[in-house]
């Protein structure tokens, strides 16, 4: 298989936008193409991610639409959807297409727009990522799924609501350093603890926001990468699944797909958790960051909450997690999230992250989780 690199990244400001998904993606994609220093004509395929455009915009067939708005309407496109892991799945397939020698330059990314919808409609559409027959009719929501995980983790390990709150405080502190973040404001532990309950034990500040935004990456072969400014190499990109049904999860305190995807990524990349310098992981809810830091092998099962409380995952700590602010503060435009996480790690490994730069970062890990923990992607990237 051929070596693959990312040579261009683009991310819109995250927050509320008066533009369609295709417009948001196209802005990010144009930035990524200019960052890569390649001609739009060089793009051989577009892998586009979007989740609720069918419901929110009454728009399907969105790959060619995104390409048309970008101005490269003849490029072959495919739309990806794996809930919140959507554009990380698109990224993995782009990596495989280039590694296999089918293409040399592939544009990857995604966009989402939901802030123009009523909150209860957006909550309903996101719940479509849970099973429609057994689960949606119970009235379960996305926060509800992670509340079930939080309760199981608390019952098994004694994880506390304060430890979860520390994740929110830390990610907002990081987000305050990111000019693209939806929330660039620090918050206090007390604010988190006193925020309104959403799905017990999760409170408003345990939850990532609804977000509009787009993100894009230019993924290329080694031959093309060698001519570029600062290529970041992909060591591995792995995917794993777990049962779609909450009633078939073997242990609600764990995300088994994270553990399996991480093992595959470490094995394929010839690296282990001890080699990772910086992490962007899927903190859709504070408990999700705690469980992910355990499943990725950074901390023992049951100690992810302690790691957050002790500041080990802060900028300046032993393993900075979510220097971008994470989904929690940077925002979570679900179809764009995976690509935006990769963009942050590329920016970190190019040493271009400004005040949120992790000193000396050479190896970065990206973890993206889809929906009810049924889909997980993990990729390892390196500056060398």
């Amino acid at each position, binding site marked *: 298989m051929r070596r693959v690199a990312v040579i261009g990244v683009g991310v819109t400001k995250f927050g509320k936008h008066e533009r369609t998904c295709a417009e948001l993606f196209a802005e990010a994609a144009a930035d990524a193409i200019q960052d890569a220093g390649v001609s739009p004509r060089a793009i051989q395929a577009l892998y586009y991610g979007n989740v609720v455009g069918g419901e929110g915009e009454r728009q399907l067939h969105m790959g060619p639409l995104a390409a048309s708005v970008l101005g490269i309407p003849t490029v072959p496109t495919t739309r990806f959807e794996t809930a919140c892991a959507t554009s990380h799945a698109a990224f993995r397939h782009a990596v495989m297409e280039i590694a296999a020698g089918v293409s040399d330059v592939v544009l990857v990314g995604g966009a989402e727009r939901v802030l123009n919808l*009523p*909150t*209860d*409609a957006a*909550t*309903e559409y996101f*719940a479509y990522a849970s099973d429609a*027959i*057994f*689960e*949606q*009719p*119970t*009235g*379960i*929501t996305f*926060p*509800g799924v992670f*509340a*079930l*995980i939080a*309760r*199981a983790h608390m*019952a098994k390990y004694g994880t506390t609501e304060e430890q979860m709150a520390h994740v929110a405080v830390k990610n907002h502190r990081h987000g305050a350093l990111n000019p693209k973040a939806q929330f660039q404001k620090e918050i206090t532990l007390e604010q988190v603890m006193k925020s*309104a*309950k*959403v*799905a*017990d*034990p*999760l409170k408003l500040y345990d939850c990532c926001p609804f977000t509009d935004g787009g993100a894009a990456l230019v993924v290329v072969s080694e031959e093309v990468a060698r001519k570029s400014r600062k290529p970041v190499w992909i060591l591995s990109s792995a995917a794993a699944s777990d*049962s779609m*049904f*909450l*009633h*078939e*999860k073997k242990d*609600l305190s764990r995300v088994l797909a994270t553990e399996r995807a991480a093992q595959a990524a470490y094995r394929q990349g010839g690296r282990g958790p001890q080699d990772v310098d910086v992490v962007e992981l899927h903190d859709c809810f504070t408990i999700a960051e705690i469980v992910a830091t355990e499943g990725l092998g950074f901390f023992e099962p049951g100690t992810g909450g302690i790691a957050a409380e002790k500041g080990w995952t802060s900028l300046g700590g032993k393993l900075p997690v979510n220097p971008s602010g994470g989904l929690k503060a940077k925002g979570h435009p679900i179809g764009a999230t995976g690509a935006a996480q990769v963009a942050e790690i590329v920016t970190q490994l190019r040493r271009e992250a400004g005040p949120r730069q992790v000193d000396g970062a050479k190896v970065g890990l990206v973890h993206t989780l889809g929906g009810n923990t049924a889909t997980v992607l993990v990729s390892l990237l390196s500056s060398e």
Partner: protein
Amino acid sequence: MSKVVTLKAFFEEARSGRLTGIRCGRCGEIAIPPKEFCPACQERAWEPVPLDGHGTIASFTVIRVPPRGRAEEAPYAVAVVKLDEGVSLLGRILDIPLDALKVGMPVRFRPLIRDEQTVVAFGPSQ
């Protein structure tokens, strides 16, 4: 010969108060239908097996920000219940005070019927 229990059949039975599982004819694994291959041994030899509906709460949450159309129902509890036969089901909690809910609490299946729709639910064990 594998006997597949369809979703339609599962929920028609559930509407009448009966839970139906499937048992692998090779390894004895019990699952919630529908399913073709046994996840444990990959055999395709299911037989329907009645589940008696008793179980305990494995985890639960109280939904306070509901999806569209459920505003009058909130707050309400949803739980993962581990049935005595070893399989689990997600269901709405009925007739148990929200502040009395605990992991490990015994509960018993009963259907929640909303017009044409049948929803898995659990109430007090007695």
